């Protein structure tokens, strides 16, 4: 374990504050929406350890962005479905793209305050099956129908239904407060910072190339395979597509037409996927015989103007969290930033590297500096791996932990921007600044000891709105696929 002691810096542990550790993190493969998962199938990944008795989990927190109306507290449904004790409380949080960051930091808060010792936090997003609502007029008519007492009343209500009532209402992809879509906002942001199309395409290509390399080298060990009933086993992220600059240059602008610079290739794509982490207090983890992967030291959330600075969270959040932890950019060995758009990442880097911006908009005396690229998102990012809104945060944190061990670093920093959905403000989160790895504490937890619980909901074909929640339990095999003991699900829940 000598590689972990190449650097020896101060510990960020503070007297009186519990050390909180990341024990393990896993995720399902991230898949392009509507590719492999059939659209009637909602999939949720959850993890457990065989070593961890089911009732040892004190609390479960899940993040999600676009909520399924039938499963409004999806954390609870997933936990029950995955065979956790029905005595384990769970709740769902939402904060746009950083919903699972919020789930993790909520868990950190619960541990720090002494409420719990063991937390499962995660995130899930299923863009292939977003709820589509009836129009407001139709909903109103339908609700009135419930209250109608006589046949005459009902008929008059039904008679009032017009063609316009039948138009469905898709979930808004636009910012509620500004009615601007995020891609549009990213394009304006890139233009504001003078990020060229070329720079964006280069960054996107870098992301895909690095992701491909990491995937081929087997570095993405947080991915667990998953068998879709009636389909193949899915074991790899399927959005990684290294291309050439020429190919990228051919694409037309996707949002600001025709002169915009944000294209389909330099934006993150709609993704299905889930992720989860096991967070514990250090005492508890050690007492239970775990070798934690990382300490979770500090985090900060910031928000800015939702119109013009929607996606600038990382630029605002990074200096703040560094200041809290008493570190500088140079102390950080591993950076993992959420790549919503290549243009957005480049804009953030430029903002962090600008004294003028720091002084004019951030009230700082000088810039914090941009992270060096040789430490930045080295195993790909949301652009290439995909971005299931609710699940990206856990992936970032787990990746930092894994990279720190691989690269022998001490401190890692995670940042993500968020907006959209129901959230109207912009946040950056750096939940694991000072994700410190002490050599003697971090040990390789053999993967074949994991038992993973997976749950998914699918709509029964005979009645489309009836959903069945299926749960499987099995072992992770040496080839990292999920070995289920039997073909039939262990439990079924029916929602109608």
């Amino acid at each position, binding site marked *: 374990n000598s590689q972990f002691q190449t650097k020896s810096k101060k510990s960020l542990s503070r007297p009186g504050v519990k050390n909180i550790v990341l024990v393990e993190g896993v995720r399902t493969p991230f898949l392009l929406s509507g590719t492999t998962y059939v659209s009637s199938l909602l999939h949720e990944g959850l993890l457990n350890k065989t070593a961890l008795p089911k009732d040892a989990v004190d609390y479960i927190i899940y993040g999600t962005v676009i909520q399924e109306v039938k499963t409004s507290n999806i954390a609870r449904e997933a936990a029950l479905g995955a065979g956790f004790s029905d005595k384990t409380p769970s709740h769902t949080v939402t904060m746009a793209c950083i919903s699972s960051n919020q789930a993790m930091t909520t868990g950190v808060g619960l541990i720090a305050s002494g409420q719990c010792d063991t937390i499962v936090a995660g995130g899930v997003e299923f863009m292939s099956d977003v709820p589509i609502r009836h129009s407001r007029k139709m909903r109103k008519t339908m609700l009135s129908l419930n209250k109608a007492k006589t046949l005459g009343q009902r008929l008059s209500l039904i008679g009032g239904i017009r063609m316009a009532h039948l138009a469905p209402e898709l979930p808004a992809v636009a910012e*509620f*407060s*500004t*009615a601007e879509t995020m891609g*549009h906002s990213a*394009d*304006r*942001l890139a*233009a*504001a*910072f*003078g990020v060229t199309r070329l720079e964006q395409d280069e960054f996107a290509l870098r992301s895909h190339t690095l992701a491909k390399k990491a995937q081929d080298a087997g570095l993405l060990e947080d991915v667990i395979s998953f068998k879709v009933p009636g389909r193949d086993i899915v074991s790899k992220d399927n959005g990684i597509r290294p291309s050439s600059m020429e190919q990228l240059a051919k694409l037309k602008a996707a949002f*600001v037409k025709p*002169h915009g610079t944000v294209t389909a290739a330099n934006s993150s794509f709609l993704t299905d996927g889930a992720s989860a982490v096991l967070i514990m207090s250090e005492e508890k983890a050690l007492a239970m015989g775990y070798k934690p992967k990382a300490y979770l030291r500090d985090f900060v959330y910031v928000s800015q*103007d939702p*119109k*013009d*600075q929607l996606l600038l969270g990382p630029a605002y959040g990074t200096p703040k969290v560094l200041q809290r932890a008493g570190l500088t950019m140079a102390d950080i060995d591993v950076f993992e930033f959420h790549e919503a758009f290549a243009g957005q990442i480049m*804009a953030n880097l*430029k*903002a962090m590297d*600008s004294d*003028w*911006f720091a002084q*004019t*908009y951030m009230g700082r005396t000088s810039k914090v500096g941009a992270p060096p690229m040789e430490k930045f998102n080295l195993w790909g990012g949301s652009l290439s791996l995909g971005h299931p809104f609710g699940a990206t945060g856990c992936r970032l944190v787990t990746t930092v932990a894994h990279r720190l061990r691989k690269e022998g670093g001490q401190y890692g920093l995670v940042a993500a921007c968020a907006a959209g959905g129901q959230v*109207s403000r912009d946040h950056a989160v750096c939940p694991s600044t000072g994700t410190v790895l002490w050599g003697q504490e971090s040990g390789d937890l053999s993967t074949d000891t994991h038992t993973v619980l997976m749950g998914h909901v699918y709509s029964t074909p005979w009645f489309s709105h009836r959903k069945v929640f299926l749960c499987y339990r099995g072992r992770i095999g040496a080839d990292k696929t999920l070995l289920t003991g039997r073909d039939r699900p262990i439990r079924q829940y029916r929602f109608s």
Partner: protein
Amino acid sequence: MAGVRALGVLSRIASRRYPALTGSSSRTFSVASTMMARTHVNYEVKGDVAVIRMNDPNSKVNTLSVQMQREMSEVMEEVWANTAVGSAVLISSKPGCFIAGADINMIQACTNTEEVTRLSQEGQKMFEKIEKSPKPIVAAINGSCLGGGLEFAISCQYRIATKSKKTVLGTPEVMLGLLPGAGGTQRLPKMVGIPSAFDMMLTGRNIRADKAKKMGLVHQLVDPLGPGLKGPEERTIEYLEEVAIEFARGIVAKKIPLTKEKGTMQKLQDYVMSYPVVRNQIYKTVTGKVMKQSKGLYPAPLKIIDSVKAGLEQGPDAGYLAESQNFGQLAKTTESEALIGLYQGQVICKKNRFGTPARPVKTLAILGAGLMGAGVAQVTVDKGIHTILKDTTVPGLARGEQQVYKGLNTKTKKRTITTFERDSILSGLTGQLDYSGFEKADMVIEAVFEDINIKHKVLKEVEAVISPHCIFASNTSALPIKDIAAASIRPDKVIGMHYFSPVDKMQLLEIITTEQTSADTTAAAVAVGLKQGKVIIVVGDGPGFYTTRCLGPMLGEAVRVLQEGVGPKKLDQLTTSFGFPVGTATLADEVGIDVAAHVAEDLGKAFGSRFGGGNVEVLKTMVDLGFKGRKSGKGCYVYQEGLKTKEVNRELDDIMDKYKLTPHPSVSSDSDVQYRLVSRFVNEAVLCLQEGILNSPVEGDIGAVFGLGFPPCLGGPFRFVDSFGADKLVQKMRAYEAVYGDHFTPCQLLLDHANDPSKKFHK
């Protein structure tokens, strides 16, 4: 309650904005280029694109002044001659302004119609050259693009505009009694279709960028940018330039089409318009509408129709000739002079001549959530000022808050704000029944019942809770401020702020200062009013101040006219045909007969017999019978919910019979009745200037037009005296004086002007 209420209808004409300078010309196009250093227009060649930047160093806005035009023609010649240049981008370096129009002074400097016509023809020639430019020119528009600026832009080959709120396109010439005189009447119908072109030119309204794109007025939109490595405005202009350069290259490379594929509706419209019968019908309909709305008092709209018609029916040569000749004629009409005067006056009244107040008003408290109080709250809270709305009863408060909500909601329906912005604005409004939080208020405006005792009571209550720097403003329409201030322990902080109802529509704010009011208090009140978007006149204290006082004698005369047997309908017709946007009988109903009676009695007491005329008892009897005007459903007219037409209140006949007067045939012709009404108004206005209530004739004109609906085509009472002739007016008044006595005695200042024709209120 505050005097002139519910003058909603007035706003149709009176509240029109007069955005910016207009017209167009280029007298110096032919002047040979000089070696003088250029200060207004410069250009830089970027690759194969010439970027032409406009920036008037002496002004906040760019205008097509003599110098701007001279430098522009020089630059254009150089660009055309430069073989390395394949295309050009025309852009302004000023944030928020492309070109706001032509320089009005240039038109005013001309002595006769021929000169103005020549000015117009030079402009036409210049833009024709631009239109026929062998190298495509892309107009990159950020900010106001009005009048001559728009005519310039539409002669370019391609137009790109930013989606900024400041980017507006329009032809406001008609509001100045002019027409788009540099090819506008010829190019617009071809570009946006005949109906839209008429709509633009006849209303003069501003068109936002997204609408302009839909109409086909611009080809492409660009989003304004937020903060980046430079300030948002600076970077937005830079970005617009980058995009425009790309497009200019695309046009040369034939990658970007100059004409848009027409939609089915557009094709259909074009097809229909190809029939002369249809076009003639349109001219007829439009002319009819114009005549109905303008009563034939405004020549510009008719000349616009004439110019468009000439171009479409007789070909471009006839069209351009008609345009330039009509432009020349219009520029020398009294109507144009009056409207330009109002525009310039409005610019003056949008400035704070009292300087910057010591502390800006961040929290404003309003007492009374009635029509007036809630109206003030509405125009305040949406400007980002925290607003406290206090009433004494829950229903009263609820009604007031609902009014604010409704006002803002209307804006969301018109899409000027989003529902999110509406809710976020409303979060700045606190409704309450007590004085909590008043210690944080920087200004308190009271809009309680018009009774000196109640005003004193609230003043004392408020002064007990507010902080020492807080200003107390009274929204009264007639009570002298010094009487209200008499109860104050710090009269230097007491001021009058007379709003006009409906507050969100009426542009005028009359600020009344007493001798004790401190200069800083006045500066703060003006600053608040300007923030609320008001046109402000600051007047001296006295019964009725300026506006209510002028209205008094005219209403008195109107009652006499009614007593003499002229019906309300006829009275309305006589006044509207003189140019008043709202007839006097309707006005009285809108203001409220009870308010009119109250004011008439108060002012009658204060000013004596000069304010007589009609019998106040007529108004009092009407109030006693419940005929209080629109609010009570009956006044001079009967108002029924849901009905747009209104019938004359027949029950009025009995009252009029009772107070019947015999008309004097010598002074009772239609024209005489009109001049009886107007001359008393005007005489009182001049008297206000003579007595020092008014600071200047400009403020008098602005107050009368924007607050009381004095005919805009006459430009206000003072300009009316100038153009009509003081001597002629005095002559008429003397004739009426002979019959009715001192109601018509001209004041000394008016007599001075009558005796010396060289004396003018406006130079």
